[in-house]
């Protein structure tokens, strides 16, 4: 379990600032997608983000489009988790389907600031930080299997293989 540095943002971080529409059919390679992550909100983010870093934000994270690149660009940039007060529903689905962990915790978001350090322990349901330890509710059972498989593609492959036997 690695310690990650926090990048903190506000409420309603939308899919256009996460990954701009002009790149949705142009930037297709993982490294290129990572380079445009969060470009219209914080142009410094993609340049300086390190694998294991954690994005912390307010309510309604990922609102807007269904574009999956808004979650994929974080995964490819090495973001270990997104911690928010709440998530827009399609973003929540996309993140899980891609195997990008999402954590809901109002208390942790209120406490954490850019530069803080966070360790996410999914099995214990704990965020251990330099501002204290915060507990979070486990994800719904229906989606845990998807995360455990490493994303929906792997999960579905396993299911299809089981069905074919």
């Amino acid at each position, binding site marked *: 379990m690695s310690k990650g540095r926090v990048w903190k943002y506000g409420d309603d971080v939308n899919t*256009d600032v996460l990954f701009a529409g002009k790149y949705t059919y142009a930037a297709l390679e993982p490294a290129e997608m990572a380079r445009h992550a969060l470009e*219209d909100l914080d142009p410094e983010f993609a340049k300086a983000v390190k694998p294991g870093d954690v994005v912390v934000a307010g309510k*309604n994270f990922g609102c807007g489009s269904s574009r999956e690149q808004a979650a994929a660009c974080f995964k490819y940039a090495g973001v270990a988790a997104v911690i928010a007060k709440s998530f827009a529903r399609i973003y929540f689905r996309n993140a899980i389907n891609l195997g990008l962990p999402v954590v809901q915790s109002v208390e942790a978001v209120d406490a954490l600031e850019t530069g803080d350090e966070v360790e996410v322990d999914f099995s214990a349901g704990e965020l251990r930080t330099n501002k204290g330890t915060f507990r979070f509710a486990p994800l719904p059972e229906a989606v845990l299997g998807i995360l455990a498989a490493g994303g929906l593609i792997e999960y579905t492959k396993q299911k299809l293989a089981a069905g074919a036997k």
Partner: protein
Amino acid sequence: MGQTFSEKVLGRKAGKAVRAGEVVVVAPDFYLSHDNSAAISKEFRKLGVKAVKAPGKIVIVLDHIVPAASEEYAQNHKTVREFVAEQGLPNFFDIQYGVCHQVFSEQGFALPGKLIVGSDSHTTTYGAFGAFAAGIGRTEMACLWATDEIWLRVPETVRIEFRGKFQPPVAAKDAILRIIGDNGADGADYRAVEFGGPAAGEFSLAGRMLLANMAAEFGAKNGYFEPDVTTLEWLKDRARAEFEVVRSDPDAHYEKAFSYDLTVLEPQVACPHKVDNVRPVRAVAGKRIHQALIGTCTNGRLEDLEAAARILRGGKVHPQVRALILPASAEVYRAALKTGLLEVFAEAGCVILNPGCGPCLGAHQGILAAGEVAITTSNRNFRGRMGSRDSEIYLASPATVAASALTGVITDPRTIS
């Protein structure tokens, strides 16, 4: 206690009675995708399955960047066409049809009581016809193609009731902007939104599509209008399948309920850079604009173009404004041609674009430079959406955008004689 519309539709699909909060695994009736079908097909190939499970349920409309604006986009479209041919998909609509949500509806897939998912956030539009319709992502669409199965959480329901009567030029866009402004961009996150009440009939089908479309802008999973005579009449020659109207029970449980009086509503505008940053138009009147966009899947139907033409007829677009007309579909385009609306726009100095998503998502056909301001009838004003991150987007009704195009500044349409 009775059931809501959403509980009924998802319960029928799950084969059991369900309540809000439960997660069900279901087989939708139709699934929509667009230019992203190329990316979906790549995910689909990873699954190691040769053929899609239910070809007749897949509806693909090319609309996002049409005609292709670059070699990459051209390759993207080509990949989609090849996949459609290889899999023998019967419901493919190439670039000449229009925006997916309008085309899906015109082609008779948006039907009462049906369960529809789409890899586009504005899939919620089909609730205007009494369908349960929600946006999903690409990877899950690929898996749906392979398995015809998806998990969905049964949403709680928020009810919004209307009373009174619109005072033109105040229209449906002003109502939905006010609702989003009052409730916030996450006001209905993960919830179903039912629109109804004594003045529900004030909303034409175009207005209902607009409200259900923009339900996504306050976080809703789906929007819903109860089908009425108008709905059934429109569907008569279009419906692709048998359908059954599904309604909430009179004693269904609503998490929240609001009521709006349409009579007192005035023209509204969503200011940069959030859809819930809503103010009366008069509060920002006089703000200089550079581009005016009338159309899109939000407000690009015939009555929207008529509302704009009423203001633009006989006038000239301000010389420092680029006014773009973007009909939602080819069907709308042809109707606007026959009824003389396109001539009104051309005479006024507007640029008439081919039906498609166009500049709404900032990929082509009218990108904003730094420092520029657009007023548009579309549904999102996020920073940088239509071009430079240092541009600004205001969202308003066709009447307000048309009035602003004439004057060169944001203008309350009630002040235009």
